[in-house]
Each structure stands twice: as C-alpha cells, then as structure tokens.
C-alpha cells in the first residue's frame, strides 16, 4: 500500500466524518420549519444541535485542508472547476451558521421568521449541492488535458447530479430525525417518529434508484468487479437501513441514530471505493483524470501529515465523543432558559 493510497483513505474518512456529523444538522435545518410547530419547539430543535454543530463543521474544514495539503492539484483543479456550486455551498454554510446564532437573540416574531426561513433554505441548498458536487465527482466532469474544466455550471446540474442532491437531502433528513428522537420529547418526539417511519421508505427507494443510476451513468462498479469484497460498503448501507427501521420501531433512538450514520457512511464509502484511485475523474478522457498518483504532495509532506493526523484525530474523536455524551439527554426547559441558548 502506497502512502498516496493511505491518504486517499484518510481523505475519504474525513468526508465520511463530515457527512455523518454535519449531516444530521443539515437534515434538521431542512426539517426544522415543518416539524417545529411553536417557537418553543423550534428552540428545542435548535438547542438539540447547538452544542455540537460547530465542532461538526470542523470536519469539513479538515477535509478541505487535507485536500489542499495532501492533493494540492486536486484542491486547485476541483475547487476551480466547481467554482459556482462551491461558492453557493459556502454562502449557504455562512448563512446557516449565523442564523443559529442570531435567531433567538431578538424576541420579535418577524425577526425569528426571517431566520427560520434562512435556516431552511441554507441547509437545503448546502445538503443538495454537496450531493450534486459528489455525484458529479463520481460521474466525472469535463476536464481536459490541461486540467481545465470545459463545462459550465449548468452541465453539473445533470440527471445523475440532481439524483445525488436528492439522495443527500434524504439521507440527512432521516439522520436528523433520528437525532431529534434522541433529543426531544412529547408531541415533537411523536411527530419525529412518525415522519421518520415514512421518510424511511422514500429514502430506501431513493437509494435503490441511485444505485441503478450509478450503474447507468458511472463506472464505479468496475472496482467492485475487480474487488468483490468492496461490496461490504453497500452492505453497510443496507444493514444501516434495516437497523434504523427496527430501532425506530422499538424506540431505541440512539441505535436508530447510529444506524442512520451507518447508512450515510455506507453510501459515501460505496462511491469513494468505486472512485479509487481517482479523486477527480475526467469524463472527456480517462487519462486526464486526477488520481492519487498524479496529484499528491511529495512523500515527505505526506509522511509528516500522517504523523500529525495519527496523533490528533484520535484525540479529537475522544473529546468530541465526550461532548456528544455530555449532551445526549433530552433538551430541557432549564437548558433553553439560559442566556446563551439558541
């Protein structure tokens, strides 16, 4: 195994961590105006993600930074090629973050309505566009031999890209509902449980369709033919789905949330495993693709980064895990009455 390949796995791991953690926050943002019926319920929903959302977003920053450091060519070419969607994702994440912070700072109804709307739209666009972006990466973009993107923004909004966007939104929504089952009680909880039971079927159908589309539009399955053991990733996804359904039925919210995280991890790994060793494939000619071998940093930088990551990421997992445990109980009235609460 080469160090470049190792960095592909780390790169994938960071994205999976980001989708698993910020995924439920984005999903909750999409759901939020529909399931929070009163101001109090909406505040409960926001405070359920308040303590953790910022730390979750750091996985995105880390994934970006690692793309920069481990695969500078990919970072430059990918971010330049996907300029417009990335800017839209960026604006969405900026607006989402400040909306959480601003919303409850003023009592006026209309003020809160504005931020309620912006939380929904920014979360939806971020989730959808991340899906569009990754589906296009799986499919390959019009990259020429100078690593210049020959398409336009509208070329990215193709059937497979849109399917990826819808899939991401649904994955995150189910994950968000599972989180809310952990953190809420009363009628809000009942509504979340009922909705999760319904969305589950839509999500499952969407995953099946997406797998079919992947066969039609991409060559991700080539790796699976060569290495059948990779089938473990789609299997993870299926197990997660089953486990999520069963746990929701038996009201074991924590397990349901873990299971929906597994669905996301399985789905993301399914795509990434098919992508390897490519990071940014060209749809014009296979040989124009950016791979781990033609775009990585020198072994010395990769080696140092590997040491850094091996020391600090386990530590991060420990204290971030601690924070999740600390805030694993239901959101209480007392909690949302503190001055700093959302």
């Amino acid at each position, binding site marked *: 195994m080469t160090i470049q390949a190792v960095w592909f796995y780390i790169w994938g791991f960071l994205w999976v961590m980001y989708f698993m953690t910020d995924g439920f926050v984005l999903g909750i943002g999409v759901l939020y105006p529909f399931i929070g019926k009163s101001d109090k319920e909406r505040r409960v929903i926001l*405070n359920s993600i*308040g*303590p953790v*959302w*910022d*730390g979750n*977003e*750091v996985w*995105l*920053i*880390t994934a*970006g*930074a*690692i*793309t*920069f*450091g*481990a*695969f*500078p*060519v990919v*970072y*430059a*070419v990918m*971010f*330049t090629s996907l*300029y*417009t969607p*990335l*800017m839209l994702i*960026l*604006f969405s*994440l*900026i607006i989402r*973050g*400040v909306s959480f*912070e601003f919303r409850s*700072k*003023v009592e006026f109804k209309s003020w809160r309505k504005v931020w309620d709307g912006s939380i929904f739209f920014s979360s939806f666009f971020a989730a959808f566009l991340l899906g569009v972006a990754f589906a296009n990466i799986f499919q390959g973009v019009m990259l020429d031999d100078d690593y210049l*993107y020959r398409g336009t923004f509208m070329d990215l909004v193709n059937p497979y890209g849109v399917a990826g966007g819808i899939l991401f939104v649904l994955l995150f929504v189910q994950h968000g509902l599972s989180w809310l089952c952990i953190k809420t009680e009363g009628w809000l909880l009942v509504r979340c449980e009922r909705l999760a039971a319904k969305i589950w079927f839509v999500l499952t159908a969407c995953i099946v369709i997406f797998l079919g589309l992947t066969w039609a539009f991409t060559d991700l399955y080539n790796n699976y033919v060569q290495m059948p053991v990779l089938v473990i990733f789609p299997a993870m996804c299926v197990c997660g789905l089953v486990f999520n359904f069963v746990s929701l039925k038996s009201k074991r919210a924590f397990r349901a949330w873990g299971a929906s995280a597994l669905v996301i991890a399985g789905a993301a790994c399914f795509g990434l495993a098919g992508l390897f060793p490519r990071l940014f494939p060209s749809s014009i000619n296979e040989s124009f693709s950016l791979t781990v071998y033609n775009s990585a*940093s*020198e072994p*010395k*930088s*990769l080696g*140092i*980064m590997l040491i*850094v*990551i091996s020391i*600090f*990421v386990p530590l*991060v997992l420990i*204290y*971030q895990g601690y924070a999740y445990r*600390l805030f694993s109980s239901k959101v209480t009235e*007392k909690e949302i009455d*503190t*001055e*700093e*609460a959302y």
Partner: protein
Amino acid sequence: MDFLFLSRLQFAVATMFHFIFVPLTLGLSFLIAIMETRYVMTRDEIYLKMTRFWGKMFLINFALGVVTGLTLEFQFGTNWGEFSMFVGNIFGPILAFETTSAFFLESVFLGIWIFGWNKVSKGFHAACMWVVFAASTMSAYWIIVANAWMQHPVGYVMENGKAVLHDLSAVLFQEFAILQVMHVLSGAYVLSAFFVMSISAWHLLKKQHVEFFTRSFSMALVLGFVFSIFTVVEGDFHGADVAEKQPVKLAAMESFWETSTHAPVYLFALPDEENERNIIEIGAIPGLLSFLAFKDVNAEVKGLKEFPRQDRPNVLITSFAFKGMVGLGTLFIFLTGWGMIRRKKLSESPLFLKIMLWSMPLPYIANELGWILTEVGRQPWVVYGLLRTSDAGSAVSSPQVLASLAGFVLVYGLLGAIAFYLMAKHALKGPA
C-alpha cells in the same frame, strides 16, 4: 475587469472582513477566562455576571469569525489554484496541525462552555474557556506560520516548479513567524482591551452598573496598557527583521527612494511613484530609519530605486498603512498610560471616559492597516521572491468572480450590520 484583479479584491474583502472578528476572539477569550477563574476562586457573583455579559458579546463575534473563516479556506482553491499547487507541500503539514490540533478544540469546548452551564462543574466550565483561548492562540500561530512562509520562504527546495518541504522545523520556528505571531496576538489583546473599555466607559458615563463596569474597565486597562507597550517594542524587532528579509517592503513603508547612510524617517511623506520621489516630505529625523532597521545610525538603507520597478509594491498604500499603524500604536500607549494614572478614579474622569468610548474603532483600524502593510507590501509577490501574484490565479472567468464578489459584499455587509446591531443592543442593555 480581469479576473485576477477581481480575485485580489475578493481576497481583500473576505480576509479583511474575517479579521474584524478574529482579534476579539483571541483577546476577549483571555479576559473572560480570567473573569470566570476569579469567579471560581472567589465565588463573587459579580465575576459570574461579567463572564456571562462579555461572554455573550464574545459568542456573536465568534460566530461571524467562524463562518467567514470558511471562505478563507475555500478561496485558495477556487481563486488561487496555481498558488495552492505551488505551496501545497509546505502548507499541508501546517494546515493538518491547525485543523486537528486547534480548530476542533476551540469549537468543541466552546460548545460545552455555551450549553454546559448546568452540566459540568464550575471549575471545568472555566477551564473550557481557557481551552478556547489556548486553541484560538494556537490556530493564530499555525496560520501565521503559513503567512510568514509567504513573506520569507525557508526550509524548502524547488522541484518541478513548486516548493517542496525540506526542513519542517525551519518553517515552524523561523524568526519571522515568531515575531509576526507575537505582533498579531498583542495587537489582538489591545483591540480586545479597547473593546471592553469602550463599552464600560459608556455605562460609567451614564453612572449605571458602576461596580461591574469599573472592574471590567480596570482589567481591560491593564491588558491594554501592557500590550500597547509590548506591541510597539515587539513591532520594532519585527520591523528590523523585515528590513533584513524584505528590504523593498521596508523602503516602501518609509517611502524611501535613494539608498543612503544615516537614512531619515519622515513624519509625513507623499510618494510620487511615477517620478520615483516624494512630492511632500515633512519632519525628517536624520538617521532614525538606519537605526530602526539596523540598530545603527550609520547603517546604509537601500532605497526603492535599488529595486526594479516591477519588483516594488504600491508605495502609497504600503507607507500610509505603516504610518497609520505606528501612529495609532503610539496613541494607544498614551491613552492607556493616561488611564493607568486615572485608574483609581475612573468615574471622576468623564473626558477620559468619553475619549475611550469613541476610541473603539481605532485598534480595529490599526489591526487592518497592519495586514494591509504586510500583504500589499509583499507585492508583486504572493510568495516573496518565488511566485508572483499575477502567476498565482485559477482559470476562472471574470463573470464568475464578479458574481461571487458581489455576493460577498452583499452577504457580508448584511451580516456585519446585523452583528453590529446585536452587539450594540446587548452592550447598551448592560448586564442582566
């Protein structure tokens, strides 16, 4: 307009807006950590009230700093692709350190601090703010190491047209980086001190919450006084280092054209870059520039004419940013020094309080001027001596950049105004 100019403008907008919020995060976390520690030690409720009042200001500010920080990371790839490929090998380890050792700590423990009032012990709660402070300081260090490498590249070898890491410790511990990070941190502490003093002065002038704001003011005053002096003294070392490593920047800072010994400093100079001279020169202090740069009044200082025109930064911007920063830095020593004299009788010093109330924008301006000097003064290079800014851009089209730039101006303008409104509202309301 060409995409390069637009990209530069966008970078300036995004970075300067981001840096409105960063210094207060760096400094106010320190003050809040001290306040809360005092509360834990003494159980005096006033320190708890102080922690929560200033904490709320901190959080609004922090949120803006976090979300605008995302832009900084994205834009290297989106707009500066050639730069990213050039520096990737060097920046990789630095960014890996920054994200995994600092950003996670900062955000996770701030989350615990915000929502954990009833969940963790008082001591642990205070410790969380110390972690936030330490982590934000570390992140400042890491990112300035990267910037310092762009100012003075070390520890690399050139391979296939890009810089490849040769000696990591040379990159991490070079003098330029250490001097720069101390300057940024001390500037941030001065800004935070003025922030607290200004809001406190408003209440003290209104004679409300006197005890609360006297204590807040005094704490900030000590911090501001110490670091106003430190910034200037340390800045002198930093300037001498610049003289050695970026002689053309030094010449531009002083608008200094002809190489000479006993080089003077002009209190005011208006450069005429076309004709390579100053139109107006007022208040020459002979030998001072030689002394500041090389600690010797006889030393020879290279003038701008020594360097080809295409290797010079914009002299007007660089020199005005420098003089403005230095002038303000000096003013801060006088203001905080005056405050130290009046420290025991603040309430009887309305004139001083009024001046401090209106001084809040000044350290913000000084901080931004410092970065303008650093970045504009490095031009035409993005990596000094190695990569020109004109060669560093991505292959994006002007309409794309124009659209995103318009988006930034609109979104940032709006968010900035709202954040200002929220902070002002909270500040004027006073402690609960």
